[in-house]
């Protein structure tokens, strides 16, 4: 398939792997920010191809993972109301709230629907004027334009029974939060190609400069990721800390300007709580004054909800690249994709779920071996 096969080419992957091995002299820890990249790394076994000196840690870039518990509870409260049709992307339905998930709401008679575009939810609102239609607007900068477009269209066309439950988060503040942690051990970043397709990459210049870290905008296929790693390690070995663009077939310096304009019209920057990490200032998007009537939190009066994470869960540390999934005692025992304790086990793109799917035998064997040795 065009634009896929050439980026999953085994020979090219081997060549890039050899190049990474030959350029690596020191010991480097790189963080891939996006959950899609984490998934590809584990799925294709990319980390197993790397030299000992290059370690990958997995970042906070899975929107399902970082959506705070209380927001799931808010979604559940809204979706349980008889007058509501609650629309969501599919992977949010499985995310457990404090007591249940949206699948349980659906099983108990709630009208919960999977849609593929927020504009579909606007259409449902138009077709069901006697219902309140709510869309769960989750995601990074990647999904923000479509969500902004849905609200904009609802306003333009006078659809008043539509609102969105917003939990938009932004990548650059998350990278800064990781870098400013005293435990941070990340030397370089692979920035998320899809996010930069929308936003461009000028936001990363001040971060690379301030923290002296190379940031390479990287795609999602194995060859993309290997090339991103090569570029990042090469910078580190040469003592450089620049913003480079590996994903040039999709990303322009200024991103997608019309999409950014739509985001700016509908959303404003707000502080957001990140699941497992806590509140990060200026790290999310909320609706502007002009679009406040489309804010489901206000419409259904759920703004005051709070919820605490399970104590055993170390997903916050995993999301910041401080720990890896295997270092958690709950991993694979009391915490599995069927019964996730925390964010990173819930989504396919969460680091714990990816390790559970593709690596749990290795982890089990390693644990057995270390126990045997003690």
């Amino acid at each position, binding site marked *: *398939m065009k634009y*896929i096969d050439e980026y*999953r*080419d*085994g020979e090219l*992957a*081997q060549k890039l792997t050899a190049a990474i091995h030959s350029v690596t002299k020191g010991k480097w820890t790189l963080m891939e920010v996006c959950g*899609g990249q984490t998934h590809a790394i*584990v*799925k*294709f*076994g*990319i980390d*197993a*191809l790397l030299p000992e000196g290059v370690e990958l840690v997995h970042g906070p870039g899975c*929107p*399902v993972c970082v959506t705070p518990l209380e927001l799931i509870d808010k979604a559940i409260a809204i979706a349980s109301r008889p007058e509501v049709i609650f629309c969501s*992307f*599919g*992977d*949010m*339905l*499985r995310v457990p709230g404090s007591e249940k998930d949206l699948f349980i709401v659906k099983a108990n008679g709630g009208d919960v629907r*999977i849609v*593929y575009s927020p504009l579909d939810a606007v259409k449902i609102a138009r077709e069901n004027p006697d219902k309140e239609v709510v869309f769960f607007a*989750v*995601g*990074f900068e*990647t*999904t923000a334009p479509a969500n902004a477009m849905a609200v904009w269209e609802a306003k333009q066309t006078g659809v008043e029974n539509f609102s969105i439950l917003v939990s938009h988060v932004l990548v650059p503040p998350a990278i800064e939060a990781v870098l400013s942690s005293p435990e941070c051990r990340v030397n370089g970043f692979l920035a998320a190609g*899809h996010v930069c397709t929308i936003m461009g990459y000028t936001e990363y210049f001040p971060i690379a400069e301030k923290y002296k870290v190379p940031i390479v905008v990287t795609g999602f296929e*194995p*060859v993309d990721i290997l090339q991103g790693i090569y570029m990042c390690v090469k910078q580190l070995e040469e003592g450089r800390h620049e913003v480079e663009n590996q994903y040039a077939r999709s990303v322009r310096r200024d991103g997608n300007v019309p999409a950014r304009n739509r985001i700016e019209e509908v959303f404003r920057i707000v502080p957001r709580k990140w699941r497992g990490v806590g509140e990060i200032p200026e790290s999310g998007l909320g609706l502007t004054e002009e679009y406040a009537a489309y804010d489901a939190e206000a419409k259904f009066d759920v703004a005051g909800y709070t919820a605490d994470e399970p104590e055993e869960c170390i997903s916050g540390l995993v999301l910041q690249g401080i720990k890896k999934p295997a270092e958690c005692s709950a991993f694979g025992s009391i915490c*599995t*994709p*069927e019964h996730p304790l925390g964010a990173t086990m819930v*989504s*396919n*793109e969460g680091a714990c779920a990816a390790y559970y*799917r*593709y*690596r*749990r*035998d290795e982890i089990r064997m390693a644990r057995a071996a270390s126990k045997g040795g003690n």
Partner: protein
Amino acid sequence: MADNGIAAATCPIPISKYPQVMLAHGGGGKLMHQLIEGMFVSSFENPMLSRRHDGAVFDVDRGRMAFTTDSYVVNPIFFPGGDIGSLAVNGTVNDLAVCGARPLCLSTGFIIEEGFEMEDLWRVVSSMKRAADAAGVVLATGDTKVVDRGKGDGIFINTAGVGVIPDGIDIGPHRIGEGDAVILSGDIGRHGIAIMAAREGLEFETTLESDCAPLADAIFAMFDQGVRVNCMRDLTRGGLASALVELSEASGHAIRISESAINVEEDVRGACEILGFDPMYLANEGRFIGFVNAEDADLAVDVLSGFEAGNGASLIGRVGKNPDARVVLESSIGADRIVDMFSGEQLPRIC
């Protein structure tokens, strides 16, 4: 009666009178009698059904038989490449075939929601008849129930089937052995994507058709050509991954497969890339995996390739050691990963 065995080219129940199925069509009285005689018996015409007995009575030779059942609740009931009727016949026929049984006869139970369009029922019944003829089975006995409007989803169908296992054939996970070749009978994932596209109104440049098809002829051709088949499994909801994991666990053997040997049509791959699905977990309704003696692998692929249902057959891997029950896939870039069953269901991702 028309030559193809279907009583009439159009719906035999007077549409002007009953354009929809009424509760009384399942009530045991005249209307039900009219539906059964006019539509089911005349369509599925065969000696067993024509006796109008409480059950089908038939002779069997000495030997072994296979018996299976499955219920069909697919939504939408009509989709590119098939419908709930062809699915209900092929699904059960295929379950028998992968047991090494030549399908003989099926029972069919209809649960119909009040208000279901009579014309749609006719389309489903006609499709079942065509599928049964293609698979060489008869629909020997049946049952009809009509439930209140809102208590069903249009139509549900259960079919059960019996088949005869020829002498000398022993198929099952217990016969999987180290070195066996793993054969996949064609490209994967088309049924899953076709259903999803029809259900969700997703549009692609071309119309993807379900792979729904009967497998018995292709499977029995392998036996006839002397392929030593040790185990088979048809791929259904859990996809290729789940079938491999189940058989690895049931046999206690490791299975090693190569990603690049698995055929996935370009449109299916495209849809998976967009939606974040893995073709390994997509539903199929006309595909199976076969475990055959290593030296028979090429012959098996050749024989299967001669059938429409085996178009795109390939050798995808080998059976490894026992006990080491796990499935390992060599990815397209040459690294290994574990293949696991899916948790819950595949859900379209956010980004």
